[in-house]
C-alpha cells in the first residue's frame, strides 16, 4: 500500500517532537479534567438529573473526547495540509513518484486518524483514572471519538483541496467549528436548547459522536440509537472522502 509511505513520512516528522507532543497530550487532559472537575463541576448542582445521572465532569469529559477530535482533525486538515499542498508543494513532489493522488489522500487521512488516537488514548486513560467509567466496554469510546474526528478531517480536507489561500479557515473555525463545539452538546445537554436548536444540533455529526460516546460510557445506549449514530458518522466520513478525493484530484492533476 503506497499510502503507508505517506503515513511513514508524517510519522518520521512526528517522532522529532514526540516528547513534547506526548507530554502535552497527557498533561493537557489531566490539567483540564482537574480544573473542570474541581472548578466548574462544583458550581453545577450535583442533584440535577440533566446529565443522565452522571457527574458533570463525566458528562463534560465524554463530550470533550469527541469535540477534541473534531477540533484536532479540522486543524490538521487546514493550515498544515494547505502548506503541503500550496506552500511547500510536498504533494506535487510525491506525485512525481509512483504515488498517486489516492495514496496521498488516504495516507494523510490515515495519519489524521493516528494522531487522533494518539491524543484520545491519554485523555481516555486520565478519565479512567478519575473513575468516570464503570464498564470495560467504555474503551469503545476511543474508536468512536476517532471516527467522529475523521469525518471532520475528511470534510476539511475536501475544503482545503479547493483553496488557494488560507482566508477561509478563519471563517471555518469561527462560524463552523466553534459553534459546533459550543452547541452540539459538549457543555450542556441539547435539550436545554429551544426546539429548533435541538433539531439543528441533531443534524450535526458532532452531536452523534458525542451521543454515541456517552451512550457507551456513562448512560445507556439502545441498539437502534447506537446504530443510528454510527451510520450517521460513517456516512459523514464517506461523503467527505468521496468529495475530498475528487477535489484533490482536480487540484493536483489538473
Amino acid at each position, binding site marked *: 500500500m*503506497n499510502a503507508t*509511505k505517506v503515513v*511513514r*513520512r508524517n510519522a*518520521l*516528522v512526528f517522532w*522529532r517532537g514526540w516528547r513534547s507532543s506526548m507530554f502535552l497530550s497527557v498533561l493537557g487532559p489531566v490539567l483540564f479534567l482537574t480544573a473542570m472537575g474541581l472548578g466548574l463541576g462544583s458550581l453545577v448542582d450535583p442533584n440535577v438529573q440533566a446529565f443522565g445521572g452522571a457527574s458533570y465532569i463525566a458528562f463534560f469529559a465524554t463530550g470533550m473526547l469527541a469535540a477534541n477530535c473534531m477540533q484536532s482533525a479540522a486543524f490538521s486538515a487546514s493550515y498544515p495540509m494547505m502548506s503541503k499542498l500550496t506552500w*511547500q*508543494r*510536498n504533494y*506535487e*513532489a*510525491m*506525485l*512525481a*513518484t*509512483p*504515488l*498517486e493522488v489516492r495514496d496521498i489522500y488516504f495516507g494523510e487521512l490515515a495519519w489524521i486518524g493516528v494522531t487522533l488516537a494518539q491524543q484520545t488514548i491519554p485523555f481516555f486513560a486520565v478519565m479512567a483514572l478519575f473513575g468516570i467509567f464503570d464498564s470495560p466496554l467504555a474503551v469503545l469510546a476511543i474508536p468512536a471519538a476517532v471516527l467522529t474526528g475523521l469525518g471532520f478531517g475528511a470534510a476539511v480536507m475536501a475544503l482545503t483541496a479547493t483553496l488557494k489561500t488560507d482566508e477561509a479557515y478563519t471563517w471555518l473555525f469561527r462560524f463552523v467549528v466553534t459553534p459546533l463545539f459550543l452547541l452540539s452538546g459538549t457543555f450542556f445537554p441539547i435539550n436545554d436548547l429551544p426546539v429548533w436548536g435541538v433539531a439543528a444540533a441533531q443534524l450535526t455529526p458532532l452531536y452523534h459522536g458525542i451521543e454515541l460516546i456517552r451512550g457507551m460510557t456513562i448512560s445507556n445506549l439502545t441498539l437502534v440509537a447506537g446504530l443510528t449514530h454510527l451510520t450517521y458518522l460513517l456516512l459523514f466520513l464517506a461523503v467527505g472522502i468521496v468529495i475530498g478525493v475528487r477535489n484533490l484530484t482536480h487540484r*493536483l*492533476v*489538473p
Partner: protein
Amino acid sequence: MPDDGVLIHAAGLIKRFGDFVAVDGIDFEVRRGEAFGFLGPNGAGKTSTMRMIGCTSAPTDGLLSVIDMDTVAESTQIKSRIGVVPQIDNLDIELSVRENLEMYARYFDISRFEAAERIDELLEFVQLAEKAKDRVESLSGGMKRRLVIARALVNRPELLLLDEPTTGLDPQARHLVWDRLYRLKQRGVTLVITTHYMDEAEQLCDRLVVMDKAEIVAEGSPRELIVGYCTRDVVELRLSDANRERLKGSVDGLVERVEWLPDRVLLYTETGEATLAAIQDGGIHTETALVRRSSLEDVFLLLTGRTLVE
C-alpha cells in the same frame, strides 16, 4: 514492443484549462539518449507540456506516450522510470538533506540498503555530502536545486525532465549543474530541458523546439535553427538620428533583414565585415559598430518577437 529509439512521442497534443488553451496541438519526438529542449517565452506552455510528460496532468486531447506507455493509463509505471526536476523547488523542509533522499527512495520502493548506497553516491555527485545532515531550509538556492536534481535521480531514471534547472542560480552553480547534466547524458540518460537561457540550450541540447503561444514554431538542433532562421552575421549599429535616416535610404538590398530598435539598428547579413565597411564607405558615421556571429537568441527573438507577452 518495437524500440525504435523514440522515448517520448507526442502528436496533436492539447492541454486546455477551461477555455484557455495552454498547449495547442503540438507534435514532437524525443529519442533515447538525446538532450531535448523546450524554449519559449513565459506562458508559452512549456511547464504544461512537461507536466503531461511527467504524468501529473492529463492531456485534454491528442496522443502522448512515454517509454511506449500511455501517460494516463500507465502513469504509475512511467513515473517509476523517470525523474522530475520541477520549475519550483518542492523539497520537504521538515526533513534533512539525506532524509529527503531516503524518503523519496521509499516512495520508489527502493530497499533501505540499496537506497543508502545510492544516496551516498548522489550526494557526492551533486557535491552535497557535507550537508547531508543539514536542514533543507539552511541550504542556498543552488544547493537546493542540486538536491532536487539528486532526488530526481534516486530511482536511476532513464528519462530526466528538467523544468528550468538553473533559473536563479549564480554562474558557478549553473556551470556545476551543466557539468552534471552533461555527465548524465554521457551515461545515456535522456534529458528533456526547458530553459530561458540560450547559452544553456546551446550547451546542453542536441535538439530543441521553440514554443510560442501554446504552439511549436520551430524545431531543430541549435545549429540548424541558427542557419535556418538567421544570417551568419549580425551587425549592431548605434547611430545619430541623421545617420539613421541616411541608412534607411541606402540599406535596402545591402542586407537580408534590418531591425530598427529604439537604441540600435541590427543588420542581418552573411558578410558582416564587408557590410559594415560598405556602410562606412558610404559616408554614414556610426557611433558604435559591432559585428558578431548570429546566435540562438537572435533566432528566438525573431520567432517569438521582442515585445513582452503579458
